[in-house]
């Protein structure tokens, strides 16, 4: 759609009043990191509180049937889907999560692996009823929010065995950050990685003019842009009210975060 007609008045969010039969529940700090799809798309033209409430109710119903564990970009996961064309009618894929997005029932993530020297990426919709199970084999984060540069990296960084075992994490340990620096193949690449401010890459070894141009195209003012941040974020009051809705099911959601309770101390994140 081309034209933005400035008719929509974005009103400040009015939080639900305290004394309306709701307990005073505290918003957990990691709520928007672990369950990012519960927060709605901030675009005001598409927002409607009733629809968001119905969508969250449907999401919780699905989560009651199939557990969706906590995962981040950089975690290695195994997804089993029912496939009418597969033998045994089930299809299992193991891969590293390179990107995740979507809100509500459209939440998705992409798994990448290299199978028979061929890079394969599969986008899974988290709430699709075709998915039988989602297992996190290795729960870890990376230095970047998106690992799309793995497409231009050496294949060993995206190769994971389909027979990989689940690596448990102790109960109260924070999710480890893998500080690995990935080596890219020689150019040409899919994107201009030098312009993306990525931390998880080894020195790209490009001529000086690439970095000069990248510096010219930088937008350093964006980190000071309050309105940009406001438009892209959901206010704390609203997050608290969303959490109140989710709270009755929170215990169950937490138990299905699949952090295996075996206590094994001294586990270090494996590099590749």
């Amino acid at each position: 759609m081309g034209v933005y007609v400035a008719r929509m008045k974005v009103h400040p969010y009015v939080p639900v009043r305290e004394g309306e039969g709701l307990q005073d529940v505290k918003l957990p700090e990691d709520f928007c990191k672990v369950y990012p799809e519960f927060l709605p798309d901030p675009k005001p033209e598409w927002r409607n509180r009733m629809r968001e409430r119905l969508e969250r109710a449907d999401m919780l119903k699905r989560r009651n049937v199939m557990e969706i564990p906590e995962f981040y970009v950089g975690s290695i996961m195994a997804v089993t889907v029912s496939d009418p064309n597969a033998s045994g009618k089930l299809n299992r894929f193991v891969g590293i999560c390179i990107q995740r997005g979507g809100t509500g029932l459209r939440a998705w993530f992409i798994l990448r692996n290299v199978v028979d020297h061929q890079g394969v990426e599969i986008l899974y919709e988290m709430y699709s009823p075709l998915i039988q199970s989602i297992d996190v084999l290795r729960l870890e984060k990376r230095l970047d929010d998106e690992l799309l540069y793995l497409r231009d990296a050496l294949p060993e960084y995206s190769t994971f065995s389909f027979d990989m075992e689940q690596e448990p994490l102790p109960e109260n340990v924070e999710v480890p950050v893998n500080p690995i620096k990935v080596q890219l193949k020689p150019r040409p690449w899919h994107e201009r990685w030098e312009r993306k401010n990525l931390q998880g890459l080894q020195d790209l070894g490009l001529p000086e003019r690439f970095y000069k141009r990248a510096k010219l195209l930088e937008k350093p003012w964006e980190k000071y842009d309050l309105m940009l941040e406001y438009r892209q974020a959901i206010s704390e009051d609203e997050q608290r009210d969303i959490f109140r809705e989710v709270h009755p099911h929170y215990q169950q959601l937490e138990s299905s975060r699949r952090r295996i309770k075996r206590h094994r101390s001294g586990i270090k994140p494996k590099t590749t």
Partner: protein
Amino acid sequence: MAALRRIAGGVSINEVTATLRTLTINDVNNSLSRQLPSSTQARWMSRMKRRHTMPPFWLPKITRTMYPENITPENQAFVSEVIANQYSSPLKSDPWERGQWTEKVRRCGVIARKIGIYPMWKKDGTRLLTTLLQVSDNHVIKYIPPEEMATSYFNKRTGNVAGLVVGADSIDPREATKEFQSLFVESGVLPKRKVSKFVISPSAKLAPGTPLYASHFRPGDYVDILGITIDRGFQGVMKRWGFKGLPASHGVTKAHRAGGNIGGGGEKGRVWPGTKMPGHMGRNRRILRGVKIWRINTRHNVIWVSGPAVPGSVGSYVNIYDCSLPTRKINAENHPPFPTFFQDEEDIEEELYDADLHVFSDKSVTFAEK
């Protein structure tokens, strides 16, 4: 057309007003379209206004100018109490007889608000997008008997039809003009933000004040949805008509998104009426036919319909009618509740799903080994 000719002949202003009051858009359309040659492709005559900035002059003004009246909080509370008392109890009148369903009967529709779009899955795993329409606070405002409906030229032709005026979404009566409030005295409901007329058969009549809910329809029914499309403003020929534009390079000067040639020469060496050019796009009245209902929530009065193509943006009003397509005829075994589903009298489940739809609380979809 007789009425138009009379106006052109020179008559008094009262007669003009009276005649115009009986004219409808459909009347003028029908008269003009009969003069159009059938070979031209023009959708409308260029004189026909598809969109109006102001409503017709005979409609009453809805809201009044609010002046600062400096009412004390106690008096404000008192006025709110009076309003609540006045509109709390339904009008006590003799119940109207409820008609019986027959083959050719036309039922009332509902007014709903488009509240969003989200995906659903069928039992075989296919994904489909569904639009959520909320039937918010619908009440029947007025019944128009066949004698009154027949004054319009259009309705004289289509036989014995009646009308039902339905309103959606109440507004504060303090903000409404006296004239607008008088429309709602008969039904005894709060003044409504959106008011629509539905053409029905006389046997489908409903008493003023009857509430209409999402349970008026059932999952598996097919409906027609009427709405005003999104206003896209003045748009160029590529977005408006899907032209391919001109090449980005190879010497093209300042015309990459232009329309190119607009006509030929010879005897008809002029620009033909209806030539596709840039102009205002959107904000048109469109009817989407044969849309399937997949799910209904009777607690919040929400209907899930197939597809993301319901005309209008999120928050706009649409009218929902029973489908008029010949391939979606209803028969006596599975006709919808007639004249409507009286939810205040009968019980109904909160969530209703179509047989083919996957319910989220069900187990994941699996395929059986052959």
